[in-house]
């Protein structure tokens, strides 16, 4: 009896071992670690315009439209282009069917209406559109947006991934508060967030991709990677070393002078992202000494953008001395309307300064070491201005103080900041008259109105050139130039397309 039991046990054990060997090994999850510049202020993409927020949340949330590889507005959750009435006052947006939220519920017209409604009340971009929207209603399988006047930027504003018109379930919206549940329709869903440690998003199996070939943010989207971990790594050197060591498969926003670290590497490659952004010296057009237009023209004449950019970025491959608000290759690029940029002419500046009636008051310029390149550029600007006869009070502040102080029109005359590339001019901060600097002249209002109410893209480009001409006459802001972003990726990452807000759908990880 015992012999039989021993044989039975032995046979069972052998059979179990054979079965275990025969069963396929559990598939390895593809996981990538993406090193970002820090912890995002929120995961609600609607209320804030911080780029870091959109880099992460664009994987979770989607908008009705987005931008393709040529920065044209294309459908995302919409099933096709919007039908615009002849008078330009009604937009009918057809919706894709069968789209699911991450909680398994289908996206309905009611969700879209509620989301857009929240966007117009909470988002800085939505409020811009909300000023002309008279109603958002469901119309069968479409949503209708009614306007009180023509507004060409409507769809680009809806397509933007920060301050985003993100579509979420209506029952997750609390009008008074930010989102507490982060449920979207994107190819990835949020699974865990540990502040200052990581944000984990995992492939959403119920994802329904838009049709068409992938182009920019538009077209086909496929989550080939199972999990993306966004890891905040505030120190740029650590991001560089981490991607070189293989701990991160992608590292964003690296200092331009570290590009040489990637030369000769086979496992990691440096990527230049262009266009990326442009540094600005915003002038106070409302109050104080800089409210004088001739004085602002004197500032423009004195500055040497090439010296400022070289000081800020060091590596010439990563900047361009370009005065057009939009870079070459974009629909709104225009060289003819750029006047007086890059003069670096002390004499001319001094003449304009005298003409302005300048009495030697200190020009209070705010800058911050928190963005090293802005600080370095401001030092060069100070030298340029002093050579022309300005008295400069350069105030070096931490960023939070600068942001607060710039809201006080009496506290400053100029401040340094930067702007990420945006595909639509209405998205540029200084176009908004309420943005610090307060560029709000009658000519600008008229030019912007004409631009915003024009639907024909070719005509819009010409009208933007007229705005740019005013930009160089009234000098509300000085554009220093263009700068490009350095990022780095593992050679094992395939399918990545460099873009200002990096995304990882359609990206794969090879062995």
């Amino acid at each position, binding site marked *: 009896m015992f012999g039989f039991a021993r044989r039975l046990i032995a046979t069972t054990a052998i059979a179990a071992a054979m079965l275990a060997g025969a069963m396929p090994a559990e598939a390895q999850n593809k996981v990538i670690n993406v090193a970002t510049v820090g912890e995002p202020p929120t995961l609600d993409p609607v*209320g804030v*315009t911080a780029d870091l927020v959109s880099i992460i949340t664009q994987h979770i949330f989607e908008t009705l439209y987005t931008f393709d590889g040529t920065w044209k507005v294309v459908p995302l959750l919409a099933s096709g282009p919007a039908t615009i009435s002849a008078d330009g006052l009604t937009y009918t947006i057809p919706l894709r069917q069968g789209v699911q939220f991450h909680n398994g519920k289908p996206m309905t017209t009611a969700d879209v209406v509620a989301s857009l409604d929240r966007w117009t009340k909470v988002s*800085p971009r939505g409020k811009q559109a909300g000023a002309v929207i008279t109603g958002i209603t469901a119309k069968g399988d479409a949503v209708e947006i009614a306007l009180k006047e023509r507004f060409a930027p409507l769809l680009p504003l809806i397509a933007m991934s920060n301050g985003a018109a993100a579509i979420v379930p209506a029952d997750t919206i609390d009008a008074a508060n930010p989102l507490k549940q982060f449920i979207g329709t994107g190819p990835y869903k949020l699974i865990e967030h540990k*502040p*200052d440690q990581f944000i984990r998003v995992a492939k959403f199996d119920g994802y329904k991709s838009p049709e068409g070939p992938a182009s920019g943010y538009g077209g086909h989207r496929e989550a080939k990677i199972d999990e993306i971990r966004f*890891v905040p790594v505030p*120190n740029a050197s650590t991001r560089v070393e981490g991607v070189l060591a293989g*701990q991160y498969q992608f590292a964003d926003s690296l200092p331009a002078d570290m590009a040489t670290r990637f030369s000769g590497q086979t496992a990691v490659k440096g990527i230049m992202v262009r266009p990326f952004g442009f540094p600005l010296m915003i002038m106070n057009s409302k109050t104080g000494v800089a409210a004088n237009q001739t004085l602002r023209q004197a500032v423009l004449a004195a500055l040497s953008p090439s010296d400022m950019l070289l000081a800020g970025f060091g590596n010439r491959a990563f900047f361009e001395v370009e005065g057009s608000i939009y870079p070459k290759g974009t629909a709104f690029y225009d060289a003819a309307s750029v006047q007086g940029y890059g003069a670096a002419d002390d004499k001319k500046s001094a003449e304009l300064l005298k003409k302005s009636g300048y009495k030697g008051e200190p020009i209070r310029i705010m800058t911050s070491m928190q963005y090293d390149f802005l600080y370095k550029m401001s030092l060069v600007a100070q030298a340029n201005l002093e050579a022309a006869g300005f008295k400069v009070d350069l105030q070096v502040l931490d960023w939070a103080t600068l942001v607060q102080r710039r*809201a006080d029109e009496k506290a400053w005359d100029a401040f340094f900041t930067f702007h990420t590339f945006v595909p639509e001019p209405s998205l540029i901060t200084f176009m908004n008259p*309420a943005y610090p600097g307060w560029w709000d002249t009658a000519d600008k209002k008229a030019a912007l109105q004409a631009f915003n109410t024009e639907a024909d893209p070719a005509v819009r480009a010409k009208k933007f050139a007229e705005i740019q001409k005013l930009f160089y006459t009234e000098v509300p802001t000085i554009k220093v130039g263009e700068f490009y972003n350095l990022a780095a990726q593992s050679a094992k990452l395939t399918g990545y397309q460099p873009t200002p807000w990096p995304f990882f759908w359609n990206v794969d990880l090879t062995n």
Partner: protein
Amino acid sequence: MLTYLARRIAGMFVVMFLVATVVFVIARVVPGDPAAVMMGAAATADDIAALRARLGLDQPLPLQYVMFLKDVLTGNLGDSIFLNRPVAQALAERAELTFFLTLMSVSIAVAIGVPIGIISAVKRGTATDQGVIGLAMLAASLPSFWVGLTLIQYLAVELRWFPVAGYGPPDATLGERLRHLVLPAIALGLPNSALILRFTRTAMLDVLHEDYVRTARAKGLGQAVVVMKHALRNALIPILTVVGLTAAILIAGAIVTETVFGLPGVGNLIVSAVLRRDYPVIQGALLVVSGIYVLINLAVDLLYAVADPRVRY
């Protein structure tokens, strides 16, 4: 002893109250507010004002202070404006890392500083002593971020012996997490070992000239017994003091190393909160850290009684 303990703990609460008040006032006097930082560049003054109202930042300061004190007295450190969670939870999430990093750094600092300090004192005036003092000065002068980046460059990137940064993936074991702390602990421990070394050397030199040490040598005891049993035990009090101070400072003072290594520790939390003007975190974290600081000092004082039986409370 109990009376002494009660007196010290009562003093701790007084210190914490003073710290809370000072931090509350300073945080609000410094320009900048969390709403502006959170909203981003495109936000207008109206957007920021709306968020301030939602966060209760538009309330009069005395009212904010009273509400803050009321919360603290009921054990509520408030909710982080930026992290969207209770301050206590934010601290708890970082407590493990900070505890182990402090423990490992102090252990490295003591393991290097005490033995070499003893050797330096015993070999006073010799080339060994001079060399050790020179190395100690060098170690103390090295900026911790440079040490950190150098360790990363050679031990993490080139040799791949250790990870570059972070505290491990979500499913990391404790062992893996501790492995992430080795390089930062060395970066912190090395400069701090120099201070402990100097204190150890000085304390040992004071004791090595005492009569009882001469007596112990005269009785024929070996050098090791004289130094370790008779001299070191009596030199322990100042050494304990500096070790305790080092540990207390490292709890919240490792910010540079935490930044270089991407570690979400308490130091990082506090400095990030200052940059973001996250008032509840600044207040709550500094309150807790000040309490821990006082407790560490109390523990060191109690250890005096262990090191020196003559000390009574």
